[in-house]
């Protein structure tokens, strides 16, 4: 974990360039809404959130400390992997024919959200100067509707805990704001799936528990073929 004082200092110097870099996302289709959010996360200097400053942005985030940038990229690619898994899962669930009516509508909406998360995190990895992690090949045990709902609840609670585990490790204020805007949506998904699964909406009580990469990765490994 980076030293908070150091990352705060780094933030001051890189804030302008990183905000501009995220503004470049505005025109990139599916990530547009996300980029609007990101753009909202800058400093009080609104003048630099104009399209012209975005267009002139080059060498984005070069003033970022290597450790902070590399750390954020690792976290973004980790989140992207989880979103790939979720997106693939819901794609199969929606196509399974196991659900109808309002449940199917909800699952479609969740599938759409996970796809938007994939697009946004892919763009974010690029903006951080990195390479988005490859989409893994996945497999899921889709037996009955009941079993699928139980599995979906497990996946969503794990995803929410994974974001919560990473949030305090993120150096960039913009990436943090983005992660938080996804994190609470995963929390909503988890509560909805928990309700469908007959579980409590708040399995951890009044305070959600974070999960580290070391805790999360072994749990999703069974879903990854390669």
């Amino acid at each position, binding site marked *: *974990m980076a030293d*908070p004082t150091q990352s*705060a200092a780094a933030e001051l110097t890189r804030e302008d360039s990183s905000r501009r870099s995220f503004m470049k996302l505005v025109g990139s289709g599916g990530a547009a*809404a*996300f980029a*609007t*959010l990101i*753009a*909202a*996360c*800058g*400093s*009080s200097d*609104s003048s630099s*959130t104009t399209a012209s400053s975005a267009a002139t942005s080059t060498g984005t985030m070069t003033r970022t400390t290597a450790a902070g940038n590399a750390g954020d990229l690792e976290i973004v690619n980790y989140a992207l992997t989880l979103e790939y898994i979720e997106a693939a899962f819901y794609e199969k669930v929606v196509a399974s024919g196991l659900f109808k009516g309002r449940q199917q509508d*909800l699952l479609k*909406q*969740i599938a*759409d*959200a996970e796809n*938007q*998360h994939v697009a*946004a995190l892919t763009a974010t990895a690029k903006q951080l100067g990195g390479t988005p992690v490859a989409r893994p090949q996945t497999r899921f045990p889709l037996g009955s509707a009941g079993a699928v709902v139980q599995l979906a609840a497990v996946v969503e609670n794990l995803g*929410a805990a994974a974001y*919560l585990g990473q*949030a*305090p490790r993120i150096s960039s*204020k913009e990436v*943090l*704001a*983005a992660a*938080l*805007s*996804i*994190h*609470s*949506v995963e*929390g*909503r*998904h*988890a*509560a*909805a799936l*928990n*309700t469908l699964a007959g579980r*409590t*909406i*708040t399995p*951890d*009580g*009044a*305070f*959600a*528990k*974070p999960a580290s990469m070391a805790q999360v990765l072994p749990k999703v490994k069974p879903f990854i073929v390669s």
Partner: protein
Amino acid sequence: MAPHRSTAAPELAGIEIHGISRGAFLARGALAAGAVYGVGTVGPFVSEALAQSDAGDIDIVNFALTLEYLETAFYAKALTLGLRAETMRLARLLHGDEAQHVAALAATARKLGGTPAARPTFTFPITDEASFLKLAQTLEDTGVGAYNGAAPSIRSREVLGAAGSIVQVEARHAAAIRLLNGTSPAPDAFDRPLTQDAVLAAVRPLIKS
């Protein structure tokens, strides 16, 4: 639903909550208009989100504490309304969670060397199941946006972790209330952050003193 009150209303002029900058409580006419009717109405103002670098951790914690006071009082009133059994169970659960958030945030304010914000008195225009669920949805969605808007400005990683742990629970509350309202638990792929000003404009009509 709350009747809209003019921001020039005399009863609002004296509102001040310890620990939050006075400026945050000055009337912001455009934002206040209709803000209490839903977070969507403050959407266009997200460009101001997170532009609050002058707010220290104690201010942010006390801001959150005030919202949790409000939510706790809101669910306490809801428990007196004669709600349906399923709704009552949820209201009871949420009341308990919000009360725990109050305790945790008050302790956090002290740990940071600050004074926890005083508990305001509130007024809630809820009289039945429908009016409760409608305002609950607005309050929980607003709570999520409030934490998401304030959290990136938090300096302490411990406080940030605590805020994250609470906002996830608020998001779960929002989803559950929305399901009871017969609406989508997660209407958007990304939850929008809200500024303190937007949040305060939304809840101001509910604060008596």
